[in-house]
């Protein structure tokens, strides 16, 4: 189908973009990469009166290191992350997840901020942001504020972002020296939305014990979720198959209401949460050991 009629504005300053959102409020929809919004327009599942296109805003397209953070402009294309040596070196979890987002043609247009603000529960970046405790920088009528990822995702396609606000930057903590990571998902075909996935980071102490672990699951609920009980099980323990199987069971139990649809039943998604957690922990631990040996 074709998009329904709407008014369109392409502000060239953040100030103008914010003024447009203030003026049109909930009738306006922000257009970033458009790889989710335009399909919704074409299918007429979204009927905004006004589209505010951020693609003419200068200065929101960058990847840079700021202290212990990788700071990424909200309009940075996913393809730029894929091609960024800085992203690959400083935040390999983010980099690896990027390659699993749809296809190159989509990543050429899709943006970091757009994917987070869209908040599809099966999308990769929200899970990465949650696993890493990323921080979203947001501009609005009252100025700027920072929203931690754990407070950002509220429910299906719904975030803490007000209709008058725009994400301007996302900060991902860089991966600490010696930490291990893994990002795994299962989809029916490469590039399809994940049926379920797991993002894991962990670190080992000098004696080889687990200092801490973070597990974010996605595709299994209305938002990505942290498997905190599984994380707690791991801390202070020696990594190994039995421990990871035990933690995977806890991760599986953390999945309360997985989506059930034509692609996968709720039970299958819950099952996958456990399997992927176990595999991701194993891979992350191997990477952490490799890093320490090096």
């Amino acid at each position, binding site marked *: 189908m074709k998009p329904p009629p709407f008014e369109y*504005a392409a502000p060239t300053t953040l100030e*103008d973009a914010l003024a447009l959102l203030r003026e049109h409020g909930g009738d306006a929809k922000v*257009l970033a990469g458009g790889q989710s919004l335009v399909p919704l327009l074409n*299918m007429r599942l979204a009927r905004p009166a006004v589209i*505010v296109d951020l693609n003419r805003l200068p200065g929101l397209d960058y990847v840079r290191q700021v202290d212990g953070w990788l700071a990424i402009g909200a309009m940075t294309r996913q393809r730029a992350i894929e091609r960024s040596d800085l992203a690959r070196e400083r935040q390999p979890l983010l980099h690896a997840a990027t390659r699993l987002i*749809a296809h190159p043609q*989509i990543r050429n247009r899709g943006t970091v901020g757009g994917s987070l603000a869209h908040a599809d529960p099966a999308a990769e970046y929200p899970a990465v942001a949650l696993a890493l405790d990323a921080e979203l920088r947001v501009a609005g009528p009252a100025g700027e504020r920072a929203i931690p990822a754990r407070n950002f995702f509220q429910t299906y396609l719904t975030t803490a972002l007000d209709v008058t606000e725009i994400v301007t930057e996302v900060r991902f903590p860089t991966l600490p020296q010696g930490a291990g990571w893994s990002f795994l998902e299962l989809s029916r075909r490469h590039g399809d939305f994940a049926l379920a996935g797991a993002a894991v980071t962990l670190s080992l102490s000098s004696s080889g014990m687990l200092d801490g672990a973070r597990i974010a699951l996605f595709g299994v609920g209305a938002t990505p979720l942290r498997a905190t009980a599984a994380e707690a099980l791991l801390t202070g323990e020696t990594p190994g198959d039995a421990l990871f199987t035990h933690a995977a069971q806890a991760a599986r139990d953390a999945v309360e209401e997985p989506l059930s649809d034509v692609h996968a039943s709720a039970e299958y998604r819950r099952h996958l949460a456990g399997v992927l957690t176990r595999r991701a922990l194993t891979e992350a631990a191997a990477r952490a050991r490799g890093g320490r040996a090096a």
Partner: protein
Amino acid sequence: MTAQTSRQAARTRQVRVTVNGRQYEATVEARTTLVDFLRAHLGLTGTHVGCEHGVCGACTVLVDGAAARSCIMLAVQADGAELTTVEGLSRDGELHPIQQAFIDRHGLQCGFCTPGFLMSVCELLQHDADPDDEAIADALGGNICRCTGYQQIVESVRLAAAKLREEGGSS
């Protein structure tokens, strides 16, 4: 047409684009997708409309050199951009080596998806002159073909890459 200011929202807008080296200017409804603009306004019907929601890849074109799906991009977003469509591939009436390779290796049957495949391959080979099978699969994963079963398409890309490397080497 009123002046386009940064703060003004309007239903129609003026668009200036360069397509295959030629400049075009038109006033379009903001809701016009890029593929409909190319086909209906500019008469460039080589770019095909398939699923219209960004899944099949038939409408793939190059926007400032980057492959993008023109069914999920608005024409107004292309204002000021340089576009390449399948019509821009041939040189002096000769098929582009990628096009010729698709013929030589039977990389098409009905041909509906082919313009999209060609443009995706075009971007791939600009960045990677000698892609391995994994890189080819990654580049083509977003293009769906119902006829060929993909194997001949992968072979077409390998042949095209080899031919372009030869051309590059001899020039």
